[in-house]
């Protein structure tokens, strides 16, 4: 069960209409290494990892949903009152035809989200290493969005989200170390 607080994890200030930037941010919204993929991946893997690291997956999955909400706010506001012509010019013509002004879980190229982006292998080490890789890929994605964006206010929020990826990566690496400490001794008969 979750308790909802009706506020964002970190402020999101959108000062100008910029559907093209919204399209780029979609990569972290519904892309392969985005926040939705991360949240769903950890939320699902948590059932079949050793008890000692369930909490890490649960906490990080929850935080990823709060990141998803920040990105949704950015995308919504960047496109809110854009005309169909503006959306088309930003490469969102096909999006407008299919979804109007609604948000959708798709990547920057308009490819809809798919669970084939994520895995649950049922092997704790394999799953945690995937999670570490996912955090580093998300960090890189934020870098490229910040590089291509000239919106200082959006970039401030994106820099916050990028830093969280660093923290999560370390938390997962710590989880691996915790499991390594659970190593069984050889039985001597």
């Amino acid at each position, binding site marked *: 069960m979750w308790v909802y607080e009706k506020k964002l994890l970190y402020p999101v200030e959108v000062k100008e209409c910029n559907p093209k930037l919204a399209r780029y941010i979609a990569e972290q919204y519904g892309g392969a290494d985005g926040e939705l993929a991360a949240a769903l991946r950890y939320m699902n893997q948590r059932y079949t990892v*050793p*008890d*000692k690291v369930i909490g890490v997956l649960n906490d990080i999955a929850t935080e990823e949903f709060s990141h998803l909400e920040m990105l949704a706010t950015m995308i919504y506001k960047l496109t809110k009152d854009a005309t169909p012509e503006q959306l088309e010019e930003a490469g969102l013509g096909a999006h407008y035809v299919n979804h109007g002004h609604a948000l959708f879980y798709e990547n920057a190229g308009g490819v809809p989200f798919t669970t084939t982006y994520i895995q649950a292998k049922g*092997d*704790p*080490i394999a799953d945690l290493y995937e999670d570490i890789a996912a955090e580093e890929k998300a960090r890189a994605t934020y870098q490229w969005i910040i590089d291509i964006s000239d919106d200082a206010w959006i970039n401030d929020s994106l820099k916050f989200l990028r830093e969280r990826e660093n923290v999560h990566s370390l938390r997962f690496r710590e989880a*691996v170390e915790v*499991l*390594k400490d*659970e*190593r*069984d*001794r*050889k039985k*001597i008969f």
Partner: protein
Amino acid sequence: MDYTFTGSYEPYISPWDPCPPVKVKTFSLPPQLFMNFQPASLPQFSPAEALQHGSLWPALVDGYSKREGIS
């Protein structure tokens, strides 16, 4: 070395669990986790043994088998 290449934990078991509980769950902790850089001059298998095991170095072989309880 007196360690295996497995870890194990005792999961929470509810009195209402529908299936008979597995009291200890085992998982792989393969050798590469404990060797960030492979040390030089490790003992080597003979070529025939290496072919069978998939590695020239016994230190990298964890002898995985279903018998160890991981499946």
